[in-house]
């Protein structure tokens, strides 16, 4: 285990930068987001959680797949190579670290492998970061995640007053840590770290009982509950874009004059166009149908397909929703409806 004092923090970030591209939390006004940084001064670890989840590290909002030039006779095109250099992502909260595992289910182990996701996952070292406080919107405890959960991280950070303690969790983490030239932590520091991890579960978030939720939600499909739940919903895409486990995408050709690219873009089931078919038919024209889809996909369909809930309780959608729709309350209400049916 190593220790990072505030004076050594810039050297620590510089050492990480020496290992390859580095994603770290960067503050811009009141927003903190994971950004590919070039200078240690950009980094802040003084935040509760980022507005956008770190999923963009592996699954960027816009990804070029093919580049092309439109000619008179023919179209010249080339696939964009997916060579990814080893990179590091610093300061990921335990619930977000778990989200990568949840997303692996669809992008890697679900039968079809997504090469973009997989390559980046293989080449990325994750530095987890323990929570010290709880936001009222969070409910990650419901998924067996605790505030100082090391699972899924290669290295794990714990705040100790002004200092940070960092421990290697995996072999990849060990190799990285030994190459950073940090000072060793004392026996007291190790004790502090271990206690912090052990006491992680004492920091309580809200929780939800998800026993039998997939079937209960299926039974609630036709319930008028959804119209009530969706009354306030304005059908924007904020919840899905800030979500660490929303993974739906669209493929778009974007051309400027004769040059263009085929890009994979985040899409959102909350948008009217999401289900618009080429024929002009749209099976989900109502806001309530779209809200039902988002909640059911996370708490029912995904569980049926991959045996894991597509939510980690990070609280982002609840915090960022312009009209304060709380996914936990909506899911809870729908599950109750399913029990009645």
């Amino acid at each position, binding site marked *: 285990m190593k220790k990072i004092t505030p004076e050594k923090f810039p050297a620590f970030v510089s050492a990480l930068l020496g290992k390859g591209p580095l994603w770290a939390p960067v503050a811009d006004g009141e927003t903190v987001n994971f950004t590919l940084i070039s200078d240690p001064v950009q980094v802040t670890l003084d935040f509760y959680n980022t507005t956008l989840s770190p999923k963009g590290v592996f699954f960027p909002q816009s990804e070029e797949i093919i580049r092309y030039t439109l000619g008179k006779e023919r179209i010249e095109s080339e696939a964009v190579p997916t060579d990814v250099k080893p990179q590091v992502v610093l300061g990921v909260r335990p619930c977000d670290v778990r989200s990568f595992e949840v997303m692996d289910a669809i992008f890697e182990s679900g039968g079809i492998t997504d090469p973009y996701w997989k390559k980046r996952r293989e080449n990325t070292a994750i530095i987890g970061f323990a929570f010290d406080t709880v936001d009222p919107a969070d409910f990650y405890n419901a998924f067996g995640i605790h505030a100082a959960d090391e699972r899924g991280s290669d290295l794990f950070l714990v705040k100790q007053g002004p200092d940070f303690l960092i421990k290697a969790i995996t072999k990849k983490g060990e190799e990285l840590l030994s190459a950073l030239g940090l000072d060793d932590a004392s026996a007291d520091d190790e004790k502090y770290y271990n206690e912090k991890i052990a006491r992680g579960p004492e920091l309580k978030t809200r929780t939800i009982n998800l026993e039998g939720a997939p079937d209960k939600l299926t039974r609630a499909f036709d319930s008028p509950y959804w119209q009530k739940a969706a009354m306030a919903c304005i059908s924007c895409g904020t919840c899905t874009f800030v979500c660490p486990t929303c993974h739906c995408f669209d493929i778009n050709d974007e051309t400027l004059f004769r040059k263009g690219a085929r890009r994979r873009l985040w899409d959102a089931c909350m948008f009217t166009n999401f289900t618009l078919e080429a024929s002009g038919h749209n099976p989900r024209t109502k806001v309530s149908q779209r809200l039902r889809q988002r909640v059911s996909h996370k708490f029912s369909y995904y569980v049926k397909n991959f045996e894991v809930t597509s939510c980690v309780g990070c609280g982002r959608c609840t915090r960022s929703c312009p009209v*304060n729709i709380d996914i936990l309350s909506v899911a809870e209400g729908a599950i109750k409806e399913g029990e009645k049916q």
Partner: protein
Amino acid sequence: MTDAKTIETRLKEEAKKLLESGVVSVVLGYGPGYDEKHPMPFAASTPEEAENLVFNEFCTANMARYIGRYPAGTKLAVAVKGADSRAVIVLIQEGKVKREDLVMLGIPFKGLKDQATGREIDEKTTGATYNPVIYDVLLGDLIREAAPSPYTVLAELQSMGRDERWAFWEKELGKCIRCYACRKACPMCYCDPCFVDQTRPQWADKSPNIQGNLMYHLTRFYHLAGRCVDCGECSRACPVNIPLYLFHKEVARECEEMFKQKAGMDINDKPVMVDFKVEDSNDILE
């Protein structure tokens, strides 16, 4: 000023009366959210549901946004604060709803708070209109104090040179993630489909790149010229805190200067962009 608790009590009473007598079939107001600081837009359609209505300083949502959800002719009661009432006026002017179908429950209020920061909302982010412009029932006493100018906040932007201002907007709009919360929170954004959702032709890149973002936001800004009532909902909805209100205020200021008319202040006005008067300013052509 009448306190929020009293307004809440009166809101419940009025809503119950209106629903019991059948004068309206729905009351648009605020209901409880996951905690007190996060009330939600709420539609009460029975006297029992009216019991759930709430009002406090965090009730920032502009309920005019929801009027268009109901079929034409639906009798609606709408809780309106200052800017919200102006939004309803614009909707009436534009023929989206009829005055006779609405019962406006006016809420004079000063000291709304931003849910995310807990800070008081002032003229820097919204028009800070304390009193509703039109109402059928007043739920509190009118506020005598004059509201400050909504345009003083523009001083910094106006002092910038052209290049500096362009750089400012490029940086701010560069943050956009295209979740479209701004247009969805906006009571005046009701186009179906919105130009940015059209695919033949596709007017703007869907990628959150600078040209796509500029295309979306600049078009939206100008489409709201003379219509934006400065309620501030777009800026509060933005998850990445883009100060959209600054652009809207600048356009509103120019409109007011050129056409001597402020959006949503008089039900008999025509929106400036659909009206023509011989004495209209020619500055718009410059």
